[in-house]
């Protein structure tokens, strides 16, 4: 994890809402999302944002395909 | 009350509904009630109401569901086979606590049957033709004036109990003309909107109207709440007419058209020295069990007469609890027993008892 924010965006994934379907992982053009190794309380391996290089543009693809509204997408404006 | 008018039963019911503030009617043609649908088609557009002929009775009941959800007075009418098709929807409405007024102008059945007046849908009306634990409040007029009066109050009853109400008539009530007086027009503008309706979650939490709860314990609560309402209806809504019962040694029980005919029989019988009286249930559900039980203790027998093979007679038996003999006479399929025919039956039984 670094502070570089070339892409000028990032996402947050609600670990409880996430059902580990993998649609966001499949769709992220920069491959910035992966499954957590942990279980959430529903028993799923939720998705985790992992963007050490700050590549996320943010394109919002992950948000658009997430069936469980688990993703919030932020733009860095500062 | 205004001047007397000579009108057809179907139209009497329609006009009375309009006076009660009903401005929404959805229907599908079927003999012998089509004139009610036609009446509404003529009248409602003239007074800013909504009339729609639906594609089927199944659609009709669900349109009523929709109108009721948004809090408007709504009605439909149909006849036996059409009413069968509404059973799923009625069960939903009862569970979702949606008021509405249904009219079933019964004809001969089962099946396609015929189109003559009959009373074979009593069980369906009173015991629940649909699935699950629910009831309709069932009103059975025996004259056109009563059809007018009961229709007029049916909307209030439906709203009071948040439950479908049924006017159970038959082809005779539907088709005949008789002088009636209509009640005043209710001011539709002044009708209070209920506080449970769906009208947009504006400045409040969303409302949900449903007949569904996946958790049986929650569903049980909903049903017990319905039962509590039904208990209140049983307390408050039982209606019947006593006709020459004070000195009666024998008792008729009948409703609707059949009861009307039996009044003649009572008079004819009394001319021949047979002291018979009549109890005419006006609410078929809730049924006036207690009144009939009281009478059971004083009469030689009770003769239930129906234009069916015997359905209401079961409620009479439930009322009587073995306290007197319960006899039955009926003609199904659209045949209307004549007064003389019933008189003969009565005399036969009286003879037996007196022997």
């Amino acid at each position: 994890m670094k502070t570089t924010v070339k892409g000028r965006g990032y996402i947050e994934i609600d670990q409880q809402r996430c059902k580990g379907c993998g649609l966001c992982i499949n769709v992220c053009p920069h491959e910035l999302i992966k499954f957590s190794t942990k279980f959430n309380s529903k028993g799923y391996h939720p998705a985790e944002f992992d963007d050490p290089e700050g590549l996320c543009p943010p394109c919002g693809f992950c948000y658009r395909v997430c069936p469980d509204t688990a993703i919030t997408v932020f733009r860095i404006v500062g | 009350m205004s001047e007397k008018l000579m009108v057809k039963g179907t139209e009497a019911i329609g006009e009375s509904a309009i006076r009660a503030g009903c401005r929404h009617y959805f229907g599908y043609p079927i003999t012998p009630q089509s004139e009610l649908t036609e009446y509404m088609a003529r009248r409602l557009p003239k007074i800013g109401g909504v009339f729609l002929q639906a594609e089927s009775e199944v659609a009709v009941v669900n349109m009523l569901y929709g109108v009721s959800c948004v809090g408007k007075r709504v009605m439909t009418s149909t006849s036996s086979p059409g009413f069968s098709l509404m059973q799923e929807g009625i069960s939903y409405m009862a569970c979702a606590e949606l008021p509405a007024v249904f009219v079933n102008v019964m004809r001969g059945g089962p099946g396609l049957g015929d189109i003559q007046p009959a009373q074979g849908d009593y069980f369906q009306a009173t015991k629940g033709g649909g699935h699950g634990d629910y009831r309709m409040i069932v009103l059975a007029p025996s004259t056109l004036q009563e059809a007018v009066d009961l229709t007029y109050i049916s909307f209030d009853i439906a709203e009071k109990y948040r439950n479908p109400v049924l006017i159970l008539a038959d082809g005779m009530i539907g088709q005949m003309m008789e002088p009636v007086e209509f009640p005043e027009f209710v001011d539709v503008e002044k009708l209070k909107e209920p506080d449970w309706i769906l009208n947009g979650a504006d400045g409040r939490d969303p409302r949900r109207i449903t007949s569904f709860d996946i958790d049986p314990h929650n569903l049980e609560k909903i049903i017990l709440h319905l039962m509590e309402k039904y208990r209140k209806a049983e307390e408050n809504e039982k209606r019947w007419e006593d006709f020459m019962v004070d000195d009666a040694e024998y008792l008729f029980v009948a409703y609707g058209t059949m009861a009307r005919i039996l009044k003649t029989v009572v008079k004819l019988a009394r001319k021949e020295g047979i002291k018979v009286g009549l109890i005419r249930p006006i609410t078929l559900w809730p049924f006036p069990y207690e009144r009939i039980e009281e009478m059971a203790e004083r009469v030689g027998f009770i003769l239930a007469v129906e234009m069916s093979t015997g359905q209401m007679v079961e409620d009479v038996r439930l009322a009587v609890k073995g306290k007197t003999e319960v006899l039955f006479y009926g003609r199904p399929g659209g045949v209307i027993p004549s007064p003389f025919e019933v008189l003969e039956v009565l005399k036969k039984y009286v003879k037996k008892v007196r022997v």
Partner: protein
Amino acid sequence: MERSVIVAGFGGQGVMFLGQVLSLAAMFEGKHVTWLPSYGPEMRGGTANCTVVISDDEVASPVVDKPMDIIVMNIPSLLKFEKIVKEGGYIFMNTSVIDKETQRKDVEVVKVEANKIAEEIGSSKIANMVMLGVYVAKTKVVKPESVFEAIRKKSKKEFIDMNIEAVKKGLEFLRS
């Protein structure tokens, strides 16, 4: 007192209207009255009929197995209803259309060339009102004035006079 009549004929002959005018007249006189039509597909290409019961007391059954009177406007109606008239009852028949005799011997038959009379006034369409006039004159179940009032209430404006005229002809018929 209770008196019942079945009025029967073709669809276009105005038998329902006849019955309704009669009922309304009775209502105006404060009597109990019911009017009951035949209905349903039997009307398809066939005959229509209605039953009127007028009574001092509440009318028990608008359905009548054995009417006191029948007013028949065509042959099929005569054939269908002559069988059920009460003994001693009346058959009013429109002999402009019916060229048959009734089989019944135990009833009074009133023959009226109603179409002919009606045409004299202007149109065979009001043959029904002629029959009504005859019926009222014969049975006196209601007063002529009540019938006129009923006609004023039920007719389209342009037909009121003609209808009353026809009833009057009917009322006079028996005298002539």
